[in-house]
């Protein structure tokens, strides 16, 4: 059974192994053990006390194969992008340079440093075992967070954002970084990326160029990569577009990858979620659903078949009930897969 649940310290070594195996860059999950441990600690706090309180909280989930007792992925959500610090993006804007007299008119794209997305709900820390990336495990891991938010919508800002990985090659060379950030940070992309996850966030404020960047001055390749996602993120993008996310004018300040944004209450999962009481039983047939318990600090989410109907109660398969730690009469949430 594939189950998404809150991370805990026992997962530490498994997450490390996973990060080694994935092709995805997960800037918000450091591979350095003490920093990773800190993240898990933050998530622990979030699940224990952060649910009822205001202020920044950082929830980290893991995907586990309960039979194999194998950890297959991680996914997180922050209640406030930046966590109290500025959250940096470039906003792509345009300035019109026109002269009637000379019959010249051109729209010049410019990148403006922006903190506008600071404090928005941020989906982050997504990493999945490559072996199961092309399966429904991917959808489960990614969308379990949304189901969690559907059970606790008042805790999250309506605007939900995701920074999608931008373009870099196998050697870790990132044309956008080389054309922009590198001039000011004086380090290569991988190092910058690494520092982002292990160093305090002030270095970002200290080093990132404050003046707007004229896009026409960038090399062609860097220009072409603006707001383009890495092909490894294609599947994630498809999923998010289906959920109702859209590209924004914002891009990642390091790799130029797109920032997607959606309205929490209008996301597919939240629009179609249902909350009912569970009746564990032998269910035959039905459609596949994303199903979760509503125990927020012991959140569980899996995929199972349901026959949706009218009434306050719904029958759920016994193994699902077991995986979700749900008994007769407990509240569950579900949304179509």
């Amino acid at each position, binding site marked *: 059974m594939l189950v998404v649940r809150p991370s805990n310290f026992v997962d530490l070594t498994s997450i490390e192994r996973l990060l080694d195996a994935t092709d995805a860059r997960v800037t918000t999950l450091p591979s350095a053990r003490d920093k990773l441990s800190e993240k898990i600690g933050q998530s622990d706090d979030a699940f224990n006390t952060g649910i009822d309180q205001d202020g920044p909280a950082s929830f980290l989930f893991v995907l586990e194969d309960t039979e194999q007792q194998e950890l297959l992925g991680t996914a997180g959500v922050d209640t406030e992008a930046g966590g109290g610090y500025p959250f940096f993006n470039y906003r792509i804007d345009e300035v019109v340079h026109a*002269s009637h007299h*000379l019959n*010249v008119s051109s729209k010049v794209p410019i990148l403006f440093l922006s903190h506008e997305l600071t404090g928005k709900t941020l989906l982050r820390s997504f990493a999945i075992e490559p072996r199961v990336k092309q399966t429904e495990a991917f959808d489960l891991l990614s969308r379990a967070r949304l189901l969690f938010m559907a059970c606790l919508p008042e805790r999250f800002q309506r605007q939900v954002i995701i920074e999608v990985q931008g373009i870099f090659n196998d050697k870790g060379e990132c044309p956008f970084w080389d054309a922009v950030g590198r001039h000011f940070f004086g380090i290569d992309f991988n190092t910058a990326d690494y520092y982002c996850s292990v160093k305090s966030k002030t270095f970002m404020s200290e080093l990132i160029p404050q*003046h707007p960047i*004229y896009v026409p*001055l960038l090399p062609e390749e860097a220009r072409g990569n603006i707001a383009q996602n890495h092909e490894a993120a294609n599947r994630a993008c498809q999923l998010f577009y289906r959920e109702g996310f859209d590209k924004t004018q914002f891009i990642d300040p390091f790799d130029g990858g797109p920032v997607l944004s959606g309205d929490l209450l209008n996301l597919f999962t939240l629009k179609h979620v249902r909350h009912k009481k569970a009746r564990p039983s032998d269910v035959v047939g039905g459609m596949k659903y994303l199903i979760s318990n509503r125990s927020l600090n012991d959140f569980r989410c899996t995929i199972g078949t349901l026959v949706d109907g009218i009434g306050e109660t719904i029958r759920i398969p016994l193994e699902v009930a077991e995986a979700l730690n749900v008994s007769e009469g407990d509240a569950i949430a579900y949304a179509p897969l």
Partner: protein
Amino acid sequence: MYIRPVIPADIDYLCTMAKNSGVGVTTLPDNRQKMQAKLDKAVASFNKELPEKDRLYLFAMIDPATKDIAGICALEASIGHDDIWYNYHVGKTVHSSKDIGVHKITQTLYLSNDLTGSSEICTLFLMPDYRKNQNGQLLSKSRYLFLAEFQELFGRTIIAEMRGYSDEQGQSPFWESLGRHFFQMEFSDADYLTGLGNKAFIAELMPKFPIYAPMLSPEAQRVIGQVHPDTEPALAMLRAEGFDFNGYVDIFDGGPTVSARIADIRAVKDSRTIDVEIRTDAPEPDLTRKDGLTLVSNRRFEDYRVVLVNSTALQDSTLHLSAAQAEHLNVDNGDSVRAVALRPRRSSDA
């Protein structure tokens, strides 16, 4: 050869000269109407018909044998009043993070009007046939004696814009890397438009935000503040007079602006006044030699004149002039003139 203010009759010569100057002398428009306007302005300036800050003092170098104009040069009393005066200020941005051990100084270009109100040395052009016999020195430096005489008509500092680097094909790497993206035209066209005094288009099209130099091509970065090879001698001449790069460059070609406090310019500071004595034995200057020459002006505003004389003509109490020299200077016995060595003494002599 002598220097005098331009007069209305000079218009045809000036237009011929503009045709010959080509790209690079933006203040010499190859357009009769514009040239006429410039000439009219200069004539009005010498007639004190314009407010001091609006004046343009345009001087011509005359070949006494033919009365032809051999070259021209000018002083702008105060820049940036009719038009907006643009430069890039070559500044720095420092990014530093102790946490990750980075300390980076980034050259940054800031669009500025900082030099507004300065005076300007401009429009120097010498016809190719006359590029010999210290004519260039005489033409260029004749202006310093005017500045020395009438300092109150000028700003505290004076600038000179130096032509920036461009290659044999006339391509400016700075323009290719920066201006072209916004102006969508050739450097020569942009240059021509500025020469016509059409500067509104600069405000309309120029990028207003600071430019980080590393975003420019390596070639463009290299030529920021660099002069065209042909301009090296002019730059050296200005430096010897006390001018220095002031951190501002041309927005089109990245050429440097040099500046000096007028009172500190060598030829202003070292000049002195002396009375004329017309003598038949006055020495003739040896124009084939670089030293032993002295610039002399007649100290007048309206019929300002400058000639080169032999330094030995400068005696303790008088300056010995031949009758011809006195005629070129338009002075008589006993008139007061201003004199200064054409070139600074080399530092090794000092």
